[in-house]
């Protein structure tokens, strides 16, 4: 939980600095090898991972499919996160990506300025990582209650 929160703050620093490119430096890449970004106790995920499930399915699933499995036109992130590092994930989310040719009409928008994504970018990462690690199955996860600090974090970040 703590780590999730810290990464969120680190990210915002980098966003305000220069719309994304310096995120490589701002995110503490060493931390994630030591610790999973999610926790699952008695079959219930932590609130932040659940938050990631919700936000993923609000912002990302219309291209990347249900449960991170990909769609007719967007790649499966359950697969991608097996090889994509946190830093690379962040870079693509912030800056977007295009693959447009005669045979392909794929494009991902830059979400760097979207608070509904960026305020929850670590939550979404935690959710997708849990899916990618095989720790979490498909569908709406059972989850713990919403902590007050999460409510405060959401409102502060979204500007409510």
């Amino acid at each position, binding site marked *: 939980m703590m780590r999730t929160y810290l990464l969120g703050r680190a990210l915002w620093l980098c966003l305000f600095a220069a719309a994304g490119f310096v995120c490589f430096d701002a995110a503490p890449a060493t931390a994630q090898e030591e610790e999973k970004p999610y926790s699952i106790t008695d079959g219930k995920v932590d609130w932040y991972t659940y938050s990631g499930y919700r936000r993923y399915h609000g912002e990302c699933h219309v291209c990347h499919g249900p449960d991170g499995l990909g769609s*007719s036109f967007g790649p499966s992130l359950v697969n991608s996160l097996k090889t994509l590092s946190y830093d690379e994930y962040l870079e693509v989310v912030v800056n977007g990506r295009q693959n447009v040719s005669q045979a392909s009409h794929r494009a991902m928008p830059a979400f760097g300025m979207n608070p509904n994504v960026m305020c929850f970018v670590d939550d979404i990462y935690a959710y997708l990582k849990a899916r990618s690690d095989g720790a979490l199955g498909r569908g709406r996860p059972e989850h713990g209650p919403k902590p007050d600090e999460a409510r405060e974090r959401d409102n502060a970040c979204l500007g*409510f």
Partner: protein
Amino acid sequence: MRPSLLKSAAIVVAATLALPTVALANEELLKMEGDPNQWVTQLGNYSGTRYSGLDQINSENVGDLQVAWSFSTGVLRGHEGGPLVIGDVMYIHTPFPNIVYALDLNEPGKVIWKYEPRQDPDVIPVMCCDTVNRGVAYGNGMIFLNQADTTLVALDAKTGEVKWTAVNGDPTKGETATMSPLVVKDKVIVGNSGAEFGVRGHMTAYDINTGEMAWRAYSTGPDEELLVNPQETTHLGEPIGEDSSLKTWEGDQWKIGGGTTWGWITYDPELDLIYYGTGNPSTWNPSQRPGDNRWSMTLFARDPDDGMAKWVYQMTPHDEWDYDGVNESLLVDDLEVNGEMHNVLVHFDRNGFAYTMDRETGELLVAEKYDPAVNWATEVDMETGRPQVVAEYSTDEQGEDTNVQGICPAALGTKDQQPSTYSPKTGLFYVPTNHVCMDYEPYRVAYTAGQPYVGATLSMYPAPGGDHLGNFIAWDAAKGEIVWSNPEPFSVWSGALATAGDIVFYGTLEGYLKAVDAKTGEELYSFRTPSGIIGNVNTYTHDGKQYIAVLSGVGGWAGIGLAAGLTESTAGLGAVGAYQSLSNYTQLGGTLTVFALPE
């Protein structure tokens, strides 16, 4: 000498007669739509009935139907809309990049011309539910294409040469285009898409010859931008009054309030009114927009000359389920309802109610559920027009961060944009429907221009007790009753076609083109096209022979879950949960398939 003189005189007379009507493309279209050998608008005619008087192919022989020819569009994503047939030429279109092909029917499949616009690919990811387009329109010797990036382009129907372009919106703010324009008189009328990006909906008319904007009518905002007259524009017979929209929003939310106009327009030349519906209010989290959110989720009757609204009717005040009101309004004359004759408008709304209205006065005559599974409201109050919402299924009442379960229909509605059809021979409406329910959990979102602004997560699954996701139904619009209903494994996402041959055609998500008996619903023919069908079926003749044509190419909202594979899980996300197993039946690919009886 004499014959020649007469001939010249006739030409002069014809020219004189023609002159005042040169600008009135609808006279040409009205004449053309009366000729069943052509298919001149996406809905077959201004009334939107998708009915053809052709009967060479009929209930006796349709079982012998064969593929006559086919054509690959070269584009993979979802193919909505359908072909037009003008004389010896068929016009088809594709999803982004929005290619238009003019095909020679004298040499089937030969390309006369191809138009491929250059569009910034940045528009692709700001289209909420695949890069669909619902087809081109014809008028005054031109083909009109409403591109994904909101550019409306007029092409010379003979050469494909660009005559003019007009920019209808700004994709960097999430404004996109998917709907098919309608040509009325000297105007081309187009709507916009993007309510999931906080876009403010409007309907806009452009001059058919120059592309200059004639009027723009917003769905939300101040009276002068709505193009209403507070004293004369009515809602169920009562004047709407001053600031009818502004009063029903908190603060400036109406500026990002949705109500986009991505469905179908129909037109009554006698009353001189166009009819269309507006989409969902934005965001999907109802707690962030208290009030009725007028005039989202509303049917509009407008004067095509200046855009002024004659009447409005809001079907779903303060939407809490994403039940866009954009579906087509079919216009049928002399329907007897409760002992009185009316010229009616029949509208199968996403919210699961089928509305029969007097289209001159805007009086509500019938409002009944067209799927018995519908549970979010018990009924529509015929005095106020308001649905009686069941508290258990109110996502506003249950509140943010609460997962409200078991709501029927799901957000994609009992029916989405796929147009229905009406047969004057049976007096019945034939409707492609969804039989899907959902869980809906709203939460707080912040607005950023050009970014998704959704505010809810959804899970969809088959309606209780059922193992199927769709029905194809026959509907009695006077009584408000289902006459027959054919279950389908998946939602029926294809526009239907009724003909004088006493048959009705539609496509399925697995890719079948089907013909059923108009009276009984009995299946008479089915053929599996290369991909799932979300396009609309049409018919025409060439050299005296009747053909049936349809675009296949699965995608759209139904295709989002396509690649995910089979799972028993029902939880998920919008359309995807419900369509998980579709990939076991079909894969992508745009193809035109044309059918005929054997020689």
